[in-house]
């Protein structure tokens, strides 16, 4: 096993690639009580067009299929069902689907090795039938309706839809009712065989356990199973223009306080900087400009334009980054004008930069308090950066005002899509 050390934080993660291609990450501490285990496939909602394993032609599958598959993988042919199995030892199980991955997980203090083996088993031995695929459609349709009723969810859906032309991040993770109704067993089989191959998956165990015993149990479990030959999955490429789709939209629905999103679309290829570092700088720039410690925030509150600070959401969509400034306010027009004015000339002091570096360092150390956050941090590192960075504190400490000003110069702050969600009168 290899060790990845986190400098200054004084922690480490063990890593090993198994013979079947699966990656395993282990983080163990003897004063932790609970365990958190995730099993992830690099298959999320954005992978709609690809060449299935063992085939040579590109196919297109309905949107929302990754999330649908997540629901179905949870159904086993024979009892106990996963939630019952885990409950026997007081563990809870869950799963979620994002744009780029689907993750199955459990958390619980006891019976860890057996539970890890079971997690691998249930995800690797699914049971799809025409009937059970059909019966899931009602449940997922309910879930779609629930999102459609939530103004904030509607806002987030439109941020991507109005900013992106071809990039598959534009579509919702869950799909539409039409998409869901066109899913059948065959589609699920194809996606499962292609994306749930061990070489496209990784296991992360965080908690309190014996590392050697754990890796041996995992190896024994995986060696006893047969898989198709590993092959590189071909995903359809797309060209995404730098312009937004829709510069402005007002959405009318059942909501009390209007919601505003001001979305800046930034192409990645403009920057000659590692993504992780670029993201740190973007976080720093927008938090200094708009968060609770900013002069902007103080002014906007004093003038009763906002009551809570603007929230900055940074979404990495592979080809582009979407930065969304989000707020709830009746005075959304005034707020829009203020934001535009603020972004005209940006001046950031090195004192503010140094303060925000302290915040970033603190965040990293705080993450190691919580097994769930450690686990998620490992998943995110693999999904977005393809590696785990042990020198993150050093990277934060190396951030400087020259690089920061260079980035500000390169951003086109006028490449924007604005969305307002307000009451339908």
């Amino acid at each position: 096993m290899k060790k990845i050390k986190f400098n200054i934080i004084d922690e480490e993660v063990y890593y090993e690639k198994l013979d079947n291609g699966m990656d395993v990450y282990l983080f163990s501490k003897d004063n932790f009580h609970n365990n958190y285990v995730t099993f992830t496939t690099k298959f999320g909602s954005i992978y709609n067009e690809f060449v299935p394993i063992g085939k040579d032609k590109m196919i297109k599958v309905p949107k929302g299929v990754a999330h649908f598959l997540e629901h179905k993988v949870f159904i086993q042919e024979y009892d106990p069902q996963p939630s019952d199995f885990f409950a026997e030892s007081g563990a809870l199980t869950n799963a979620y689907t994002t744009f780029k991955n689907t993750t199955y997980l459990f958390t619980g203090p006891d019976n860890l090795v057996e539970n890890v083996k079971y997690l691998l088993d249930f995800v690797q031995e699914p049971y799809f039938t025409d009937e059970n695929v059909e019966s899931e459609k009602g449940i997922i349709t309910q879930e779609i309706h629930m999102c459609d009723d939530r103004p904030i969810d509607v806002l987030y859906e439109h941020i991507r839809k109005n900013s992106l032309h071809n990039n598959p991040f534009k579509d919702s993770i869950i799909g539409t009712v039409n998409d869901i109704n066109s899913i059948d067993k065959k589609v699920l089989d194809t996606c499962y065989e292609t994306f749930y191959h061990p070489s496209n998956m990784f296991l992360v165990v965080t908690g309190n356990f014996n590392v050697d015993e754990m890796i041996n149990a995992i190896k024994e479990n995986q060696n006893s199973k047969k898989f198709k030959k590993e092959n590189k999955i071909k995903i359809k490429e797309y060209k995404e223009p730098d312009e937004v789709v829709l510069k402005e939209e007002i959405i009318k629905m059942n909501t009390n306080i209007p919601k505003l999103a001001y979305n800046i679309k930034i192409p990645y290829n403009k920057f000659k900087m590692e993504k992780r570092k670029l993201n740190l700088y973007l976080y720093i720039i927008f938090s200094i400009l708009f968060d609770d410690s900013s002069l902007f925030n103080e002014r906007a509150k004093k003038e009763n334009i906002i009551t809570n600070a603007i929230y900055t959401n940074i979404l990495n969509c592979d080809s582009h980054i979407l930065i969304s400034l989000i707020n709830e306010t009746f005075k959304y027009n005034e707020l829009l004008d203020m934001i535009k004015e603020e972004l005209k000339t940006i001046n950031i002091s090195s004192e503010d930069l140094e303060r925000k570096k302290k915040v970033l360092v603190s965040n990293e150390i705080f993450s190691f308090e919580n097994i769930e956050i450690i686990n998620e941090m490992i998943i995110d590192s693999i999904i977005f950066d393809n590696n785990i960075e042990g020198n993150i504190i050093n990277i934060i400490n190396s951030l400087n005002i020259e690089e920061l000003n260079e980035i500000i110069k390169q951003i086109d702050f006028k490449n924007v899509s604005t969305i307002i969600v307000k009451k339908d009168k």
Partner: protein
Amino acid sequence: MNYELINMGAYNLHLVKTNRFKTITVEVDFRREIQKEDITKRAVLKEVLLNSNKNYRTERELIIESEKLYDLKLVASSARMGNYTNISFKTRFLDEKYTEKNMNEESIAFLMDIIFNPNIDNGSFNEEVVNKCKNRIEKSIKSLKDSKLKYTLFKLLENVKDKPYSYNSYGYLEDLEKIDGKVLYDYYKDMINNDFIDIFVVGDFDSIKIKELIKKYFKARTYHKTKTNIIVEELPIIKKIIEQSEEDNVNQTQFTILCGINNLTEFERKYVIKVYSELLGGSSNSILFDTVREKNSYAYYVNADVKSYDNTLLIYSGIEPGNKNEVFKLIKKCLIEIEKGNFTDDMLNNAKETLIGGIKASLDSPSGIINNYFAKILVGTDNFEERIDNFRKVTKEDVINVSKKINIYSTYTLEGVKQDEEN
């Protein structure tokens, strides 16, 4: 982990020493018997104290200071616990081992400064600050309807007059109007002087030093407090269930049920009723979830939640419009099935193990640890090990007995009237 409870006269100091964390957590709780007209004042007060201070006049200065203290986290919250209302000021900061010398003292001093050194001119909180915070509370009161479930549960409980759980925990617009800097400052002094106070510290510290620091910076010096029973009086058992509903332009119907719980023994309140609630609707392997969602596909979610201080059990679900009567029938059937003992030992065991797993997991978070010791002071909750043993002792007969003490009192339905044709 080592726990020490020290009676400091004006307050209880709870020290929990553990090497589990790289941070130190300090929580200060003020509580008293709940009065409906106090809820809004307390909501505004906690905002005001976190907004302005003699040393850090503006919210911005306050935040900049906390970021300089390596992003010390500071939150204030107000909540109801049975018949009590509680304001809690909580800070969590990096242990100085990871930052600089004296940061522990500076961080504790900062928290106490927030509580004891507010921005007062002439016996009144600064009016500008008070107005800003009132706006914020007004917004949170108005936002209740944005969460369909919260709103429906609120309407369900609001209909039970005179019980503290019928109060709107966000506050009331009509009470908000009456609040100004003077009113609020009088209330603040009243709170500091007359509330019960508990202070919790969790981390890898030197107990003697921490005790000295708290003594040095915590300035409440009062001893007259009125004790009240935390447990809310039971609901009467009624023959006809009170059913109410309203329509809304939503895709999903929210259906909520209030049940009264009568005549619990102490063991039942601490253990059996929690097992019952978990078995009925705690998670995705509960009886409700299995019947209403999985077998009948009527609902996206259905849960049960016991409020043991309130003597109530809430059942809530998000369902397809038009299916309310069917779902209600199924839920009632689930309640009867438990009374008849129609559940397996495995199901019972799973519910117990889930609760035990939750206790163990709570040891990994400072607030989990604090909640446990707080409950010990409030209702004599047992120690971690005893709780685990006692949950294991709960039998099928215990659950059947407790199930007979549960009576449906009322329902509230937010009926969806829009069908989405486009999708």
